[in-house]
């Protein structure tokens, strides 16, 4: 091989001043280490959600009024019998007080049997009666009697299944968390206008989770007959971040195995320690830069530093391999290091650059947590270019190899040659053809499997945690015992001011609720019309024949007059009414069914409303020819569509239909001014007061609303992300090889592996989620490294005029060891994650191990086989 042109440059800039450079690296590392000591875990709910998604706009708009998705449920279970005893009620009261005291909890939204807003109503001969579920005289009266009264009130208040379990063995405290709140400890200061400046602090979810855990231990210790179950995002994130701490353990195991492997490979303690050292330096820099930029580390991206370490070691192995090889050829260590550095800085740089770009494509996904992961990973890989392509050879140049070591390297290389000879058969036909055919078949199988890949969480409970984790067992308990759970999606019916006093508006919401109730996977639903019906029945002496939405618009407002906004069923202007839908699970299919049903109801409803208006046109223009009426209708249809898209959000922002139609159609060439007047007066007089399409159903709040948006964002991001990552990889290959054929040889095996990886997700029931989506990009970005290392050498030999199989044989002699090793060290570095207590880490571990190993196989077998076909003479 020709002497590398870069050598003099590398020597003069780097190696001649190696002492200085090493000192600079040491100094920077010290600074970074200081920053690392400031590193904090940073988890927030908003980071997990695609804030720009249509559904999340609804979520953000209404989270203050109706509470977002960020609820915590504390369920107390009576171990023996029912809840109706003193011990249980004392415990419930105590737990309720503790929950209200937790910082970040919205006290006005804490609900339990003890909440004043939890009331019942009933009919009597005097009319309606009502009161708090736990009567004021509860403390004084005979307990036996009091408890049976409470039991009855629970049923009358309709909170069975919501605040009390269906079998009366458990009761719940439901609390809403602020995403930020006024800091009670902050000193009051005045702002420029003389107002008390608000001191908002972000809710610390991990802290909330720990306080809830303390609640659990305290209550269970004080009341031996009571067991506590806690679910909700904050608790989940607490458990995840506790579990995330365990990754240190996996890191240590991976570190040890990697060290042993590198030692076995290099047969030298020095050569083993140096790549481990430089890779660790890279991790320190990565975390340091992250902190310096003001980021914390999210439990979701806590694995990334370990991934960087593994990538670092794998590139370090290439460097050691280069130095060893050169030493074996008789070079002095110093010169061997320069040659290795000059030889690897381009392919290594390209490989690492492609990793960086692979990670950066994740920026396209509008979910902050993935973006942070992308930044964390990009920084890490970029840093590796400095630490493992520059610092490592500099350090290696200081080492000294005894003659015996040089001999053994030479011997080993000789002994490996027979293996490489066998492998090079794959770069020659007919074997190459066989391999390519196998590759095509695997690609097809992968494609078929990838088609069936599911989006979203495929299992019940919190997907980040294992099925048998305490959190998911608690989730299971709550979903089994109650009619609700955290799997709730709320659809918001936006309508005009005082919308709840119009019959056809309430009827539409009611019809909608009934349609949702009938979807498979819907456990129960709740909305305002339901309350109106119950109250109307009670107003008519409890006669069930009157349990219906009152059509009489004098009666309708009366039936809901007592429903307070704290129920979450209406806003103060009665212009927004949520329909809460409680699901049995949050599997992607269930969510899709609900979302699909909402969308189909919307469009059916719009069609029905439109046809009403069209009928009106027919009747009021009865004197016209039908063809003339059709002209009016076809002009009117798009105007109606436009009107139905207008939001009711600002109470007076939406014009009346007739005004809007006048506005849109005046000056029309086909409709005369008189006709327009006739049309608008018909609209004004004949349509009900609540107008044309008076309700707009908006998706969605609630935990499942967030999931629906996330699933859609993830599914939508997948294709562009893949396109970008492949574009980036292809472009880098084109630049570095200056060969279309070569680029195809490197990229095609990657495509096969990407497809197989997606198929693997189908077979292992791993859904495409916020956690697994980045893995696919990472797999491609890192997987291309092998191909780059192999092909950058091979192309040189081919250009020298060697046959493909000879070129491949020579390449293997140079770098075969290293490539195999790279694959192994990377795979080992991530495979220990499979045993993580956190499900998403285990999933990421499985996926990455698979992609690293199979990409290596692709580079060793498929790449040369393709080359032998493309570089035919």
């Amino acid at each position, binding site marked *: 091989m020709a002497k590398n042109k870069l050598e003099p440059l590398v020597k003069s800039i780097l190696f001649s001043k190696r002492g200085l450079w090493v000192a600079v690296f040491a100094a920077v590392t010290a600074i970074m280490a200081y920053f690392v000591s400031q590193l904090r875990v940073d988890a927030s709910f908003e980071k997990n959600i695609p804030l720009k998604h249509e559904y999340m706009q609804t979520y953000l708009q209404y989270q203050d009024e109706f509470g977002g998705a960020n609820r915590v449920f504390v369920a107390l279970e009576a171990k023996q019998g029912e809840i109706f005893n003193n011990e249980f009620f004392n415990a419930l009261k105590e737990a309720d007080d503790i929950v209200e005291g937790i910082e970040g909890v919205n006290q006005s939204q804490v609900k339990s049997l003890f909440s004043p807003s939890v009331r019942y109503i009933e009919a009597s001969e005097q009319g309606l009666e009502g009161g708090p579920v736990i009567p004021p005289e509860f403390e004084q009266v005979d307990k036996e009697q009091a408890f049976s009264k409470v039991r009855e009130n629970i049923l*009358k208040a309709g909170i069975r299944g919501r605040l009390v379990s269906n079998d009366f063995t458990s009761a719940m405290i439901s609390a809403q968390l602020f995403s930020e709140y006024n800091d009670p400890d902050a000193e009051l200061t005045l702002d420029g206008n003389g107002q008390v400046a608000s001191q908002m602090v972000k809710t610390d979810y991990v802290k909330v989770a720990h306080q809830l855990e303390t609640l659990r231990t305290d209550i269970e210790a004080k009341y031996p007959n009571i067991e506590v179950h806690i679910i909700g995002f904050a608790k989940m994130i607490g458990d995840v971040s506790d579990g995330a701490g365990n990754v240190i353990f996996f890191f240590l195991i991976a570190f040890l195995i990697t060290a042993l492997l590198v030692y076995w490979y290099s047969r030298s303690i020095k050569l083993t320690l140096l790549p481990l050292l430089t890779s660790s330096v890279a991790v320190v820099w990565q975390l340091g830069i992250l902190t310096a930029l003001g980021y914390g580390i999210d439990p979701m991206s806590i694995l990334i530093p370990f991934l960087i370490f593994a990538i670092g070691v794998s590139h370090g192995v290439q460097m050691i391999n280069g130095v060893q090889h050169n030493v074996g050829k008789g070079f002095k260590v110093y010169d061997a290091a320069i040659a290795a550095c000059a030889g690897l800085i381009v392919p290594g740089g390209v490989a690492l650059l492609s990793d960086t770009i692979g990670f950066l494509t994740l920026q396209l996904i509008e979910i902050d947590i993935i973006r942070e992961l992308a930044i964390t990973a990009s920084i890490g890989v970029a840093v590796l270019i400095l630490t493992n392509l520059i610092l490592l050879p500099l350090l290696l140049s200081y080492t000294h190899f005894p003659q015996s070591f040089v001999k053994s390297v030479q011997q080993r290389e000789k002994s490996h040659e027979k293996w490489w000879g066998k492998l090079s058969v794959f770069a020659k036909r007919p074997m190459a053809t066989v391999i390519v055919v196998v590759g095509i078949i695997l690609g097809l199988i992968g494609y078929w499997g990838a088609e069936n890949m599911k989006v979203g969480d495929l299992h019940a409970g919190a997907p980040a945690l294992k099925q048998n984790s305490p959190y998911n067992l608690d989730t299971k308990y709550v979903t089994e015992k109650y009619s609700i759970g955290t799997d709730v999606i709320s659809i918001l019916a936006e309508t005009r001011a005082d919308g709840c006093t119009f019959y056809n508006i309430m009827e539409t919401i009611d019809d909608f609720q*009934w349609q949702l*109730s009938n979807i498979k996977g819907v456990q129960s639903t709740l909305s305002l019309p339901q309350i109106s019906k119950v109250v109307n029945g009670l107003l008519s*002496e409890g*006669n*069930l024949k009157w*349990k219906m939405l009152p059509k*009489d*618009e004098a009666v309708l407002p009366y039936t809901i007059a007592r429903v307070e906004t704290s129920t979450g069923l209406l806003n103060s202007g009665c212009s927004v009414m949520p329909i809460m839908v409680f699901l049995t699970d949050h599997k992607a299919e269930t969510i899709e069914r609900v979302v699909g049903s909402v969308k189909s109801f919307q469009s059916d409803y719009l069609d029905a409303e439109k046809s009403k208006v069209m*009928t009106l046109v027919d009747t009021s223009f009865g004197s016209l020819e039908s063809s003339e009426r059709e002209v009016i209708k076809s002009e009117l249809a798009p105007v109606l569509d436009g009107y139905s898209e207008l939001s009711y959000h600002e109470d007076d922002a939406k014009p009346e239909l007739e005004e809007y139609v006048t506005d849109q159609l005046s000056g029309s060439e086909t409709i005369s001014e008189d006709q327009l007047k006739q049309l608008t007066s018909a609209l004004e007089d004949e349509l009900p007061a609540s107008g044309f399409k008076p309700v707009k159903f908006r998706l969605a709040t609630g935990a499942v609303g967030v999931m629906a948006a996330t699933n859609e964002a993830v599914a939508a991001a997948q294709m562009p992300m893949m396109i970008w990552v492949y574009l980036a990889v292809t472009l880098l290959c084109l630049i570095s090889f200056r060969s279309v054929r070569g680029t195809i040889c490197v990229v095609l095996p990657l495509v096969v592996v990407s497809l197989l990886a997606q198929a693997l997700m189908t077979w292992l029931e791993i859904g495409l989620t916020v956690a697994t989506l980045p893995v696919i990009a990472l797999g491609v970005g890192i997987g291309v490294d092998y191909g780059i290392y192999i092909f950058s050498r091979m192309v040189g030999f081919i250009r020298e005029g060697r046959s493909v199989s000879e070129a491949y044989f020579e390449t293997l002699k140079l770098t075969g060891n290293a490539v195999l090793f790279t694959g192994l060290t990377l795979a080992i570095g991530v495979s220990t994650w499979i045993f993580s207590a956190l499900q998403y880490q285990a999933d990421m571990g499985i996926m990455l191990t698979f992609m690293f190993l199979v990409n290596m196989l692709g580079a060793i077998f498929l790449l040369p086989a393709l080359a032998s076909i493309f570089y035919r003479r």
Partner: protein
Amino acid sequence: MFVMSCTGQAKPAVIAPKADSSLLLDIVKVSEGRYITVGERGHILISEDKGASWRQVEVPVDVNLAAVDFLDEQHGVAVGFDQTILLTEDAGETWTISHQQVSNYQPALFSVLYASSDNITAVGSYGLYLETNDGGDNWQVREITSLSDVYDGFSHFYDLEKRSDETWFMAGEKYIAEANDIGEEFSKGMVAVTRDAGKTWEKINSPYEGSFFGISVTNGDLYVYGLRGNLFHSEDQGGSWKKLKLANEAGLHDMLITENNGLVLVGTGGVLVHKQGDNISVAKRSDLKGRAALVSLGNERFIIVGEGGVETYDANNEKKASAVKGQ
């Protein structure tokens, strides 16, 4: 007086998997093993296996249906809100709108009697009284002035039952029976009778100042029941009444007399009162969902409908269960 049927705004009922657990208000036996129940949102469901399974049929309206009655095994009528009257000629498989009058007030029909192949009579809110004498081709609204209150207004007519072709009884909401000079009003639960197949009606002596939700008629006996668990029995066509104590204060919506001459009543809060001689047992649905109507399957077994949809109820099991509990 002829009333034009206005069917322009009728929406057909939605076929829904959970229709059998929606609010159902009346149930009737059509033929051996075949039962039909009606309820909210235009739901009509048919069982051909004594209530074990239910099948919802297409209905051209989605208003709440409150009552159903059959002349024979084929001909039936169902009534509900918006003065809706539906007819079937094929044992309930298909239904057509015979009459409907949509308005913003609440003209509801609560009970119907398929008296003969010509006459169908339906009664409902605010004294609404509709009849046909040509099998449903033409409907007439009648104001039964003999049943008005002291101010010539009307209370709701809730239940219409037939003893013979000529003699029918009706029960309903309390009405203001008397008012004195100082504005005091005295109300009575409505009980009325016709002895000429609906041509003329007269009030009969009412034993209660509150509302009645239903009336049950046998050859010799009359039972009226309603608000706050009140049940009255008359052996002389309503000339005198005896209050039957039931140890229950929940409103009673429907009653049947078993083959052993026991009384079974259902009502608000899912209450089920079983009176066998002096033996009275009161059971409630554990979820307190109201029970609206019931039919007998024989041998102390019933199909009950209400807020929780349809359920089959075996009184024998309940007795066993309570016997076990009592030990």
